[in-house]
């Protein structure tokens, strides 16, 4: 049990939030791509013993967990229909199935992911400052 395991936990948070940002970037990039479905990361608490080794105590193991993106989920909500009969992908009734991506929601999620990333950075910096303070005792 040390400050390094705290930093490791925050690092899992950083990588999960980066993955989330990547899916948001993909959604925004493909907002007009016909046939694309909105992607969403699924986050689960990580109890992976391999990742944390024996560093965390058993007691802490179940309570202090990292986070892991277990899968990228495809949003199955219906596509947005756009009337455009001249489009080669148009259905017989003249509608084109556009992706179920709403740029406004994606942008809001992007800001949330950014803030969450920063919160993890703050936690890492706090752990780092505490470790430095402990080293300072001996001086």
């Amino acid at each position, binding site marked *: *049990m*040390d*400050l390094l*395991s*705290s*930093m490791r*936990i*925050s690092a*899992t*948070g950083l990588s*999960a*939030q980066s993955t*989330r940002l990547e899916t948001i970037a993909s959604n925004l990039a493909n907002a007009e791509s016909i046939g694309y479905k909105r992607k969403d990361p*699924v*986050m*689960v*608490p990580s109890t992976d013993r391999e990742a944390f080794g024996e560093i*965390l105590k058993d*007691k*802490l193991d179940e*309570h*202090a*967990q*990292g*986070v892991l993106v277990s899968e990228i989920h495809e949003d199955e909500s219906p596509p947005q229909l756009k009337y455009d009969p001249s489009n080669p992908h148009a259905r017989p009734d003249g509608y084109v199935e556009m992706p179920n991506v709403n740029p406004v929601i994606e942008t809001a999620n992007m800001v*949330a992911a950014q803030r*969450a990333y920063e*919160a*993890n950075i*703050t*936690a*890492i910096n*706090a*752990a780092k*400052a*505490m470790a430095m*303070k*402990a080293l*300072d*005792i001996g*001086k």
Partner: protein
Amino acid sequence: MSIKVFDQTYEALAKALELRTENQTVIASNIANADTPGFQAQELDFEKAMSKALGSGRDVENVEGDIHTQVNNVVREDGNTVDRDAEMVSLAQNQLLYDAAADLVKKKLALLKYSINDGGSH
């Protein structure tokens, strides 16, 4: 009267540093899982146990923190109960108190050094 070079205050401060480190891990875990559906925010309680042990003159070495799920938190739509702002405040508070304990250890050691050197500079 016996004079101990390292008194009980050192033990108490060492224990405080240890428990604050543990608390930092619990808070980091809550922050990392602030977007995990169904995650229940945890907290480490030790201040009461610590002051009780110190008040009764018992050994602080055996004081243990109690990790449990935070109660009375707002449950979000996805079942997550992490209050991000409260966690950031706990993080800052925990860090400050850790720094304070580390500073006290340092000051006590400096005082010891001062008397070892017979009050002169080292």
